């Protein structure tokens, strides 16, 4: 990020990043949707996804990363994640259960649980990715202008 780096440093980083970033993002998706069977879930996936983008930003510059995932898009998406989670809960309420009751979402009961968990993990993943990136952008933008 700093001006003091020579171009060569950047090149190494860029090559490494180019190789790694797609796999990191793929791995994040795997973690997101595989949390039922192995370790993982929305939160870890969100953090890993964000880490992938952060690596990209370090290699190719903050501006490029921010034009790829613009804060103007991330901000509503972060809110949307919370709403997906809450909405799943409210849906349970509308279908005759209590808040966050997944059994009423589908039959058989375990299918309802699967659906509910899938949805809330999606909400978690979305909010965590977006908030982590927003926070990183906010800090990095300031740091870039440091004297």
């Amino acid at each position, binding site marked *: 990020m700093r001006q003091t780096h020579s171009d060569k440093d950047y090149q190494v980083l860029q090559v490494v990043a180019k190789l790694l970033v797609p796999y990191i993002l793929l791995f994040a998706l795997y973690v997101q949707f595989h949390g039922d*069977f*192995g*370790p993982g879930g929305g*939160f870890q996936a969100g953090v890993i996804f964000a880490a992938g983008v952060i690596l990209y930003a370090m290699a190719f510059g903050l501006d490029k990363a921010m034009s790829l995932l613009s804060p103007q898009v991330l901000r509503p998406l972060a809110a949307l994640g919370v709403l997906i989670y809450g909405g799943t809960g409210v849906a349970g309420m509308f279908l005759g259960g209590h808040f966050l009751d997944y059994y009423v979402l589908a039959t058989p009961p375990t299918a309802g649980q699967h659906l509910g968990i899938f949805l809330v993990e999606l909400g978690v993943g979305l909010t965590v990715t977006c908030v982590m990136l927003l*926070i990183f952008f*906010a*800090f990095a933008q*300031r740091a870039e202008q440091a004297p």
Partner: protein
Amino acid sequence: MNWVGLYNYWIVIFLMMTGFYIVVSQGNLVKKLVGLNLFQTSVFIQYISMGKMPGGTAPIESSAPAVYSNPLPHVLILTAIVVGVATTALGLALAVRIKQAYGTVEEDRIREEDRNV
């Protein structure tokens, strides 16, 4: 009395208190936050330690019969980790703004600045 079973907890308490000490003794706002992180992480270790079963495995069901460690502390700590990073981010954002407003992140110098106004 069987003291051996407590040895782990004592080290964890030492870790907690080291973090706590950094928070209350250091004057640098960023270092205080590092201390807060250490303090919280050590509390996490305490929680996870208590969920351990002898000869247990991770609480993910497998086909072979197994003894599982208690999943509840794991869940609580996952939440607590998130709370921790949220606090850290907010604290650092405050530190950045304080640096901008006061020109320093040392407690003593901030106090001096405020007294001079």
